[in-house]
């Protein structure tokens, strides 16, 4: 694997988490190809080959709907996320495509000021090179923290 590719993919990953942590959710669908898949699924289902997700968008229109719903419909305490990522591995590398895995940890800070681990897991990503740079064709978020505290509103 060339170092520049690794650098480019890490850049994509860090730009992605910054959009969520900075509460720029409107930018979030733009990290995907139009037919991109975004799925959050517990590890216990993944391990047993069971398909039930907690959230699944199979195109960017569904992602924009999720953002619109979070902004205007759903009621929840505004989260303050900080994503930490580590261990980025490129599993497979093609001319304009790559498979990668990255560990993530999300801490959330409540309005009252308590910070706690909200979720740990792994990103299983398929990325493709487009005219606008690297995008996710698939981002599957497989979380270890099977007990979701209270609710999950924002993307991971």
């Amino acid at each position: 694997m060339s170092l520049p590719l690794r650098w480019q993919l890490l850049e994509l990953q860090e730009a992605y988490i910054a959009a969520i942590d900075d509460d720029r959710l409107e930018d979030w669908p733009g990290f995907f190809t139009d037919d991109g898949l975004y799925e959050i699924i517990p590890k216990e289902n993944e391990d047993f080959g069971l398909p039930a997700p907690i959230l699944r968008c199979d195109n960017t229109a569904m992602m924009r709907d999720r953002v619109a719903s979070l902004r205007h419909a759903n009621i929840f305490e505004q989260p303050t996320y900080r994503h930490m990522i580590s261990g980025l591995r490129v599993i497979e590398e093609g001319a304009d495509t790559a498979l990668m895995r990255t560990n993530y940890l999300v801490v959330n800070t409540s309005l009252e000021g308590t910070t706690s681990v909200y979720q740990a897991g792994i990103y299983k990503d398929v990325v493709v090179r487009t005219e606008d740079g690297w995008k996710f064709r698939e981002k599957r978020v497989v979380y270890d923290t099977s007990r979701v505290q209270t609710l999950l509103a924002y993307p991971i």
Partner: protein
Amino acid sequence: MDGTGPITQELLDIPFPRRDGSRIPYAVFNSPEVYALEQERIFRGPTWSFLGLEAEIPKNGDYKRSYVGETPVVMTRAKDGELAAWVNRCSHRGAEICRKTRGNSVVHTCVYHQWSFSAKGDLQGVPFRRGQKDQTGMPPDFDVKDHGLRKLRVESYRGLVFGSFSDTVAPLAEYIGPEMREYVDRIFNRPIEYLGCTRQFSNSNWKLYIENVKDPYHASLLHLFHTTFNILRVGMKVTTTTDSTGLHSALLVVKNQEETAEGYKAQNIRTYQDGFRLQDPSVLDMVQEYAELSTNHIQPIFPQLVIQQIHNTLVARQLIAKAHDKFELVFHFFGYADDTPELRAMRIKQANLVGPAGYISMEDTEATELVQRGIVGHGTAQSVLDMSRHKPDETATMISEGLVRRFWEGYRNLMGFSAGDLA
């Protein structure tokens, strides 16, 4: 000791101001003493608690960990295919035996001293039972038959597995009751396939969630998804029913029969100039699977199960009380064994509607936590459940707290709490 005897020595009473379940003392939501008494009188009392689906343990030897109230149990399918359940506590020194969430084994061995048990909970082996060389083993009067695991009564109704500590509770079908069986049968009308589960943890009392699933009044007010996206829900026919105890209930919301599924789809994308619209309304697609074109079927079978059909998502929600101010909710997703690939994909897509991140459900635990925080320092304060109280026969409406009131009557009877004279 099997640990199922009474632990509360003194009689605890939380007096309810009224007999009709319309005033609820907040103490029932944040008292550790009430929670302890519920373990005894409800979860170890004359009730059946939902453990899981038969479809989760289809093969002989399959098992999964579950709970009856706070007590950890394991439900299994034994070598002969029979269902069993036992408390996950070694009969020797009390260690947890089964350490995996689910798996397959016909023998369960405690790691501490390797006492081994069958899938039905019978003690099969005790290392060094007859000693070794010149060292003695267990006394001659030690009989393995006396030291099996604490077994539960287990019954399945249409693939829903329940367990009970009670020797006196009626058989499961009778406990569910004829009014409720009609609704259970509606959903569990043919073989199902388990699709996995998601879990949600809430810092609030488990009965706040029971109130929530018996309260159609909040639906359009707390969950703003439909109204925000101008998704019209016209011509809905509502049915609410309880069993004779009031503890179980069913809410069925049915679309007008004349409207086809296509018509429903067209309605979903109707927009107003100043409103929002869904760019991909496929999440609200719906195919008719039952005699009625029902959008919502919400049916709590007290104390641990809520059967849910919302559009084409099918879920058995398990409600597990963890403390006076904590509960866990496990959403067991399923489909029918004869689903087409398209219908199965639709069920998976509609998981977006329900569960911990669901468009029309995520607020429920938010609301129960708001109550839990709001009632701190409650003194003698109580909640008010008056909506349609003067019209108890009006059951074909969402604008009612009737099911919640009936629940509290049933709960008060089960707990033995007193009530004032009014109503």
